[in-house]
């Protein structure tokens, strides 16, 4: 009798498990297919790319990668992206991590909200005044202006991720450190900051990915020598034709560093993203 009752429950669980599996598969396909298509197209000729009858079975060619690498412009733009991404992330972290600690420890919520305004204001509305100011300062076309504009978005991002993180750290640890003779800064530097390393990594990885993919600031503020990868990708789209193979090869090259950063940072990423949720 009891096994007869258990059977429908078991079937229901099994059906739910199947449903979950199918749903996960569909969601994964939606996210993964464009990447697979990009990767496959990077190894196709332009005729094959635009021919829907050519799927994933074709004779691959490395010509697209050869052309992209021989041109040199893509590599230069990847270098520029790296410089801007690393500089803006490091500088943002230097400013935002201590700020987040202060906001979290001393309940400076209004200050935190003020910084968040930078993320609320649409970036495009800032472009004209910024451009005017940076042009007057002779900075347009330099790395400086790209780094500063990316920091405008990265600082609030890191700040708000880290506030939750610092709030989750027991205040007693810092109090004990102060009792043992450390200064306020010492307690932050020697106690809070090392404990917040996973959070800092998470925030920095996200800030770097934002910077790496940012198109709008780079389009307006860079010149031909400081152009970053997202803008350079559009060089493959000309007025009368699109070099799909070259575009996909360049996009693949642009995606690889972010994937590496994400994989390396994944361990911290998960810990960092969940850390703020366990406070209290």
């Amino acid at each position: 009798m009891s096994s007869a009752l258990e059977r429908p429950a078991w079937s229901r669980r099994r059906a739910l498990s199947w449903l979950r599996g199918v749903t996960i598969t569909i969601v994964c396909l939606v996210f993964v297919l464009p990447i697979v298509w990009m990767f496959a197209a990077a190894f196709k000729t332009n005729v094959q790319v635009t021919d829907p009858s050519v799927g994933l079975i074709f004779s691959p060619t490395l010509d697209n990668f050869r052309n992209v690498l021989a041109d040199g412009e893509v590599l230069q733009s990847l270098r520029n992206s790296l410089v801007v991404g690393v500089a803006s992330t490091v500088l943002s972290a230097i400013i935002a991590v201590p700020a987040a600690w202060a906001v979290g420890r001393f309940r400076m919520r209004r200050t935190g909200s003020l910084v968040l305004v930078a993320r609320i204001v649409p970036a495009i509305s800032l472009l004209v005044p910024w451009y005017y100011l940076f042009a007057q300062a002779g900075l347009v076309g330099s790395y400086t202006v790209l780094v500063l504009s990316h920091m405008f978005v990265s600082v609030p991002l890191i700040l708000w991720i880290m506030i939750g993180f610092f709030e989750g750290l027991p205040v007693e640890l810092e109090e004990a450190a102060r009792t043992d003779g450390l200064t306020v800064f010492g307690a932050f530097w020697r106690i809070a900051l090392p404990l917040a390393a996973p959070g800092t990594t998470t925030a920095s990885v996200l800030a770097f990915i934002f910077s790496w993919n940012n198109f709008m600031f780079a389009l307006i503020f860079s010149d031909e020598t400081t152009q970053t990868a997202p803008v350079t990708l559009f060089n493959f789209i000309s007025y009368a034709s699109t070099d799909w193979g070259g575009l996909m090869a360049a996009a693949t090259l642009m995606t690889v560093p972010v994937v590496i950063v994400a994989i390396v940072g994944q361990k911290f990423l998960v810990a960092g993203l969940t850390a703020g949720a366990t406070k209290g």
Partner: protein
Amino acid sequence: MSIPSQTLTRRSFGKLAAAMTIIGGGAALGGCSAGGGRPSPNTPLCIMAINHVWSQAIRKHMAEFEERIGRRVSMSLLTSDQLANSYNVKLNASATDIDVMMVRALQEQLLFAHNGWLADLTDRVEGDAGYQWADFLKAPRERSVTGRMVLSVPVVTERPVLYYRKDLGAAPATLDELMETALPLADRRGNFFGFVGRGQRSGAVSMWSSFLYSFGGDFTGQGRSAIARPESIAAYEYYGRLLERAGPPGATNMSLEQAMPIFAQGKAAFYVDADAIYTNFLDPKISTVQETVGFAPFPAGPAGARPFNIPSWSLAISAFSLLRDEAWQFVRWASSPEMVKRLQAEGIPGARQSAWSDPATLASFPADLARTMQTQAQIGLGIDRPDVLQVGRARDIVGRPLVAGILGQPVAPVAREADAEFAEFLVRDNRHREG
């Protein structure tokens, strides 16, 4: 024990934050400064251009120009949308770091002129006998003038061409013949189409304009909307029927980027688009029809063959440029009779009559294409879209009946609605223009 003094903590934090800001800001500003200010001999002449074969070709000759003016040239190539966005941001901020601008005379010139962004070139082009301003083709030359001022110089021109498959038969001479030939060739199940063309609401308007003119219609007449006149409705219905019955599925989402590959892959019998894209069909890396593609003039409609002949890209000088003389030297050099001949000989159709009259400049084009381009350059109209300030909005309105036609819906009621909307738009646009 609790942390002793919150005031002290805040102060400490203040010092820390200030120190970090100085370190951070200093590192950013100190390490990467590119300089700027007033133009020195080292300040480059900045050119913003479309990523186009013309720009790529002129770039190859740039060392010659740099040597001539003794100044470095910085040339940024962007797509047309990015270029327009960059102009909007930079020129709104009165940027001095754009000297030469590549503009679409028919799309942007009125608006840019209204905003005061373009320098007046009238004295320069007309006062320089060696430049031979009168040598430019009449239609593109006229479109370079706004408010009696020459604000741009055309460097690339375009006309519509009927691309067709020589292996499937001869090119039709009239629009009726085109319809009669294309319909039976269409085999959607076999993934073959009788005709392919742009069908996107806004993107299709420019290419459809030759159909409109050849049916005897126009976008406006005496300053009023003319898109609901019988000739215009006939043009809408014709183009809609052609794409609906002989075209590929999803044609209303197709612009150049989607339509062109269909013909290049040998999946369509006819294709009407700009002559500037012909190389796409001759390049074996992109095309499977390089042996079979033919080029024919735009077929005649009830009002004859009335294709456009437009300045697709022109050079202008920013009103905020601090290097206007050097910018003019570039424009003069890049659009000189000699350079236009050189570039046309490389397959880039220019805007000078002297180049079109010189058989040597046409040798690089396939013979039938050269004949077609020459004919259409003589008879073409100088505009392929509404002549208004806000061209994008106007194209959206005018394109609505086109989409209805392609979807097989009755065109006349949609055209009448669009006509009323366009009439209102024209009133507002004129008010802006006069303001």
